[in-house]
């Protein structure tokens, strides 16, 4: 925060002014404790809201994607728990990696992860996504998603049943409740 620049504010270009004033507001809120207070007050609301809209990216790779489809069918009806699939990474919170990741897919999956907006989580579903699974000595299969993306929840199984997948999302709900991210994501 450089308040000494305040007299020069009228002489700044618009982009200079925006970055300067933004920084001033940010620092002001941080050092007066307003940011923390807002975080404290809004965190329960936001974590409740995020919990009820853990929207996974609709990106089925392999046979675990069939379990994903079964989980969103009428018998398990994952939609009642907020798992509504969206096809655009910008509109999703959860990257559900369900299947083997080939060396050719790896950069694209990393890019999808980077396109998702914060806060974001990653779930590795099935043996292949966790550790390579049956393709442990394959020439072209990446040995686990966590070699290039941070993973929050692992769902074991080959493939895991829809109940297991929903259980994994419930674990993610617990994690979101515990983290309690407020408006400013605790930055």
């Amino acid at each position, binding site marked *: 925060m450089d308040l000494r620049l305040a007299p020069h504010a009228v002489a700044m270009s618009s982009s200079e002014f925006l970055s300067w004033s933004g920084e001033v507001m940010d620092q002001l809120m941080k050092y007066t404790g307003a940011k923390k207070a807002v975080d404290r007050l809004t965190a329960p609301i936001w974590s409740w809201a995020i919990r009820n809209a853990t929207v996974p990216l609709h990106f089925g790779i392999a046979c675990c994607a069939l379990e994903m489809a079964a989980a969103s069918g009428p018998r398990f009806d994952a939609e009642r728990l907020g798992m509504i699939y969206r096809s655009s990474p910008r509109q999703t919170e959860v990257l559900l990696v369900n299947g083997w990741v*080939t*060396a*050719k897919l*790896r950069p694209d999956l990393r890019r999808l992860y980077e396109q998702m907006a914060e806060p974001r989580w990653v779930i590795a579903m099935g043996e292949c996504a966790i550790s390579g699974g049956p393709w*442990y*000595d*394959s*020439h*072209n*299969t*990446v*040995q686990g998603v966590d070699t290039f993306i941070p993973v929050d929840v692992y769902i074991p199984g080959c493939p895991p049943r829809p109940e297991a997948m929903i259980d994994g999302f419930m674990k993610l709900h617990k994690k979101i409740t515990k983290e309690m991210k407020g408006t400013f994501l605790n930055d």
Partner: protein
Amino acid sequence: MERIGLAPGGKTGEVLAQDIAQKFPQLVTITKATHNRLYAKVDKAALVPLCSYMKDNLDFEHVTCVGGVDWLEEKKMQVVYHITSYANKVTAELVVDLPRDQPEVDSITPLWGGANWHERETWDMFGIVFVGHPKLERLLNPAGTEVFPFRKDFVSGRRV
């Protein structure tokens, strides 16, 4: 033998086999022919003439699959073509033998566009070169791979 579902004006596999054997007496060997199947061993030089003849005169419209076989001990490679005729309801299986140290065969992509990715995949996995293919690049393996994983002397193991 009475054929079920014979297309109007269609020919059986046996008739087509006789036709091919008359047209290419030396370079093509018919190994077996049934009412809806046709198996033949084809010399490398006769592949494209045979395929154009099959396409233009015998109504073979569709390449179902192109694959490779690696015979390590016999020191040869095979390319197996499955070509289907909807009009005759016959699938022909053509097998071409290639030397293992120089596996090169003419591409049939100019005849049937559907062979494009099949041949590309066969090159990707076996290293069999299809001369005249429009885009012989890596398909399933990432670009820059230097091995041919489906060859029998390929040692499998973690690479990525």
